[in-house]
């Protein structure tokens, strides 16, 4: 979930008021956001203070900026939803003096592009920092680490229009990337530039790479990696900046452009549209003038709102609550039709409107209601059986343990003296210490013994828990079972002790069983037995093989056993 830094002075200016910490915390609930930190008492001057905010809604990228949060708080407090007259719509394009031409070569590479120009006043330090942060959060979270959306800002004074968006062989173009002084080709940028190393996965291996130049061939940027060090080097005080976004999905690219444009408009900048000429028609037309409003109206039955929220709602009450969320709507009989704000595209289903109604009304206006249905509660049969078994083992002097289910191949396979072919291995482990799912409880118990040499003996421990292993017969190729494992460690531990424990346990569980000889490498030959239920193996017990004990660094004899509890459910 994104966390953003908000400049206090800019935020208060955009919100149209100041906040105390508690007020802000409460207000942020309306944006599903949390106050994560605020250096308000640190002695830092107000214009440099930072408010840290965590945003919980991954479907509302419009809230991931200072202007976005301020807008939500402003409208919730009763302010009018802002108007953005610079948006073009289907059949109603704004006049644009600047153009970007999309070359057919980008179609199989990174086909979509949106652009606009911000002007009217020089860019301030706090606004530039906020724009860079918005770019990062938007393109990292919403743009899937720049793979589906990325963004660049440029100095229009250095651009010879129209701008050209094309795809080129990576060795064919050289320029000086931002934050470097040497001239590199695109392949070299992926290898040498920090951003190339971070985001190179998007372009690497492709024959053609995206490139943005002006009409003289001056490079603006190498999307989605890095800007050029001249046209793409924006500084505080610059005016007339080109904002451009490229990506693989036109609605996402368009929405991202809309969000950034609205943020700058809220901060008092002028947004000048840019026309993008596509080589073939897109879902928004062949030439699209950005910022472009593409969202479709969504309707909801006010009866449905009432059913979901648990109290009566007239269509007018629905519309009123939506207005407090900055959402315009029209009433058509029972139905309310919603026109999503320019910066939002999260109304997938009428229920998404219901949530805005809920927040618009305020959570505290909904009274909790006790359920009226009658239902019967019960535990799973294996949980019930496990509790019986655990009570018996406790009665026999055993301490219950509870262990993690992930571990290393060393612990689960090598030290146990068993082959590893049935054990589930993780393809992308974080470390080799958590690379396998435990196939048995015994290694967990032996690990306990190996770290507990200082605890007073005898050690008698058990766990009822899950194990998982391969099983070709299952749809998933694996099964999960609930097992009961026990271990007794002391100077005189021997087979008879384990056998007596199993006999007592199964007697009191009322469970039928028999035993037979077996040759499990984890136990001493001739001092181990397989537990059978109706002829099927359901467990094992015996004296732990001294080689296994040695592998674990254990110097006290151990007897242990394991039983598949689910066999007795």
């Amino acid at each position: 979930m994104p966390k953003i830094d908000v400049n206090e002075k800019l935020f208060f200016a955009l919100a149209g008021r100041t906040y105390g910490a508690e007020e802000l915390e409460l207000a942020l609930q309306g944006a599903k956001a949390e106050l994560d930190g605020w250096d308000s008492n640190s002695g830092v001057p107000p214009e440099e203070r930072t408010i840290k905010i965590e945003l919980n809604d991954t479907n509302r990228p419009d809230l991931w900026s200072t202007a976005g949060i301020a807008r939500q708080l402003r409208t919730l407090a009763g302010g009018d939803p802002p108007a953005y007259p610079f948006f073009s719509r289907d059949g109603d394009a704004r006049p644009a003096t600047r153009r970007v031409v999309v070359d057919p070569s980008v179609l199989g590479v990174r086909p979509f592009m949106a652009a606009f120009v911000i002007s009217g006043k020089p860019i301030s330090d706090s606004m530039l920092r906020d724009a860079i942060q918005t770019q990062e959060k938007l393109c990292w979270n919403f743009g899937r680490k720049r793979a589906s959306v990325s963004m660049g800002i440029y100095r229009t004074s250095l651009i010879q229009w129209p701008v050209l968006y094309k795809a080129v062989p990576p060795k064919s173009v050289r320029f000086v990337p931002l934050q470097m002084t040497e001239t590199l080709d695109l392949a070299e940028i992926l290898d040498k530039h920090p951003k190339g190393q971070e985001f190179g996965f998007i372009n690497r291996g492709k024959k053609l790479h995206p490139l943005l130049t002006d009409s003289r061939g001056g490079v603006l940027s190498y999307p989605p990696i890095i800007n050029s060090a001249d046209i793409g080097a924006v500084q505080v005080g610059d005016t007339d900046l080109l904002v451009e976004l490229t990506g693989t999905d036109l609605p996402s690219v368009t929405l991202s452009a809309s969000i950034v444009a609205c943020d700058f408009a809220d901060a008092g900048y002028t947004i000048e549209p840019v026309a993008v000429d596509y080589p073939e028609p897109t879902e928004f037309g062949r030439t699209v003038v950005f910022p472009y409003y593409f969202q479709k109206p969504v309707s909801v039955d006010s009866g449905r709102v009432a059913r979901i929220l648990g109290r009566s709602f007239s269509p007018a009450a629905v519309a009123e609550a939506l207005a407090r969320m900055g959402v315009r709507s029209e009433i058509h009989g029972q139905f309310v039709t919603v026109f999503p704000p320019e910066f939002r595209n999260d109304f997938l289903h009428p229920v998404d409107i219901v949530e805005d109604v809920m927040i618009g009304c305020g959570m505290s206006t909904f009274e909790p209601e006790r359920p009226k249905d009658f239902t019967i509660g019960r535990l799973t049969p294996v949980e019930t059986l496990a509790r019986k078994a655990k009570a018996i083992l406790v009665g026999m002097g055993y301490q219950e343990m509870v262990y993690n289910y992930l571990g290393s191949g060393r612990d689960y396979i090598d030290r146990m003296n068993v082959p590893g072919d049935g054990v589930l291995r993780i393809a992308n482990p974080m470390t080799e210490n958590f690379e396998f799912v435990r196939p048995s409880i015994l290694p967990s118990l032996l690990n306990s013994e190996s770290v507990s040499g200082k605890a007073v003996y005898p050690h008698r421990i058990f766990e009822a828990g899950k194990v998982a292993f391969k099983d070709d017969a299952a749809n998933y190729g694996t099964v999960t079972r609930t097992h009961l494992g026990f271990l007794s460690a002391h100077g005189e531990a021997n087979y008879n002790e384990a056998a007596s424990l199993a006999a007592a346990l199964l007697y009191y569980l009322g469970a039928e069983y028999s035993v037979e000889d077996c040759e499990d490498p984890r136990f001493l030959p001739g001092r181990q037995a397989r537990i059978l239920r109706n002829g099927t193996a359901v467990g094992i017990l015996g004296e732990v093989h001294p080689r296994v004990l040695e592998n674990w660094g254990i110097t006290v004899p151990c007897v242990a056993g394991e039983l598949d509890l689910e066999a007795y459910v």
Partner: protein
Amino acid sequence: MDTKSLVRTLHPLEIKVLSTYAPGRELSAARLAADLGYKEGQANQAFSWLTAKGLAEEAGRTVRTVYELTPLGLEWISAGTPEERILRHLADKGPARLPEICAALGLEQKDVGSAFGLLSKEGALSMDAEKRAVADPAWFQAAHASGRKPRIALLREILERAKAAEGGILEESALSAEEKAAVAGIARKRGAGDAGFRVADRESVSYRLTEAAGAVRKELADAGITGDEAGALTPEMLETGSWKNVRFRAYNVRGPAARVIPGRRNPYVEFLEGVKDKLVSLGFQEFDGSLVETEFWNSDALFMPQFHSARDIHDVYHLAEPTHAREIEEPFLSNVAAAHENGGATGSRGWGYGFDRDFTRRLILRSQGTVLSARTLPTAEIPGRYFGMARCFRYDKVDATHLSDFYQTEGIVLGPDVNLRTLLGFLEMFAVEVAGAKEVKYVPGYFPFTEPSVEVHIKHPVLGWFELGGSGIFRPEVTEPLGVHVPVLAWGIGIDRMALMALGLNDLRELFSPDIENVRLRRAKI
């Protein structure tokens, strides 16, 4: 400690000393041995205890010489000293040369030589013309007649006396001058391996009872405590009825109790079971499932788009082998795919992308308990309430606040009439009944699979305000494809923080500690 309490801490060994002697009287181990029949160890124990309680103090120290019987000395007692054996040999076999004696008795020449020297000096032996040793029976008769014991007879007596003494020790002070001279001949200070006695210096400490002992003595007398009280009630006392005439020694009940190590439940598991029992009492049925799941059930069925950032390779664990489930059950697969692509029959516009039917079969370790809720939906009763405590796996660096696998508590409520207010009603029940909250508040939340979504925050009497859990109403894109056409409330509560608090811990790793001693000592605090 007052005198009465002090009396209860006294051992019979102390009681007898206190009852027998008046304060100021100087006492030694030997004194106690003579008067009370204490062995030296018992006497020293009594002095040590009494001193620690301030009832006795050290009066002085003296160093004395003692003779300690060696293993060789002990052997001499049964087999005879070398001198005795030489004399017996000569008496039985007649005169013999020294080398013959050595060979016959298995003794070293120097030992035989020195024994011969001593005995001939005393006149008990002589050497004949053929250089044979000859015993002189007349000499013994003469010695006995004179009333003076021969040295070797004296030694035999001393050896027998030492054997009978405690620790094989003879006090030098208890020997006559003659005896001392005799013992000195067969004793060594060092290297006593070939001597009958080891000579050693022993320090003996003498004590005297303090004034405080006087009050205790009076208390003992008044209470009639003699130190002869019975230590234990025996079956024999009960059979014979002798317990009626026996006084039992009082225990010091303030003393520390010895540790026992019982069989015991794990406190964290008990905590979790307590939550389960609470939920069952609120009408919830428990569900459970496989640790290994598919992308389909873990996320796709929950309407999380396949390109969602939470589904990146570094957020879930993938299985290396097998990598994919053979199939996903129909019609759920097609229904869910349609919901993602264009909404299908759910009334949604969907996510608008091409659903990957290969990716959806990929096997992972379940990353959220909600997977069990999704799996339960197709067969759930209406009305119905379900919960599960599911072990989940996260791609996280393990530290005090993150684990590779941990429990999540989740559930669902199905019913034709459930709604936001019923959801708040359930959250309030959990807050009060499960978490013991005093105040509850609800704030809007966000979860990919619920709309609307609500977080519940509670004020716990000990922990203060914290987020108890998240909840919401399942999106129609989740329920409709799985064949459920009534609203479904979904909730999850985070109880790890309460568990840590309950167990007095501050590190999540401790919940799954393999350390036996840690777990043995752990106990719930709230």
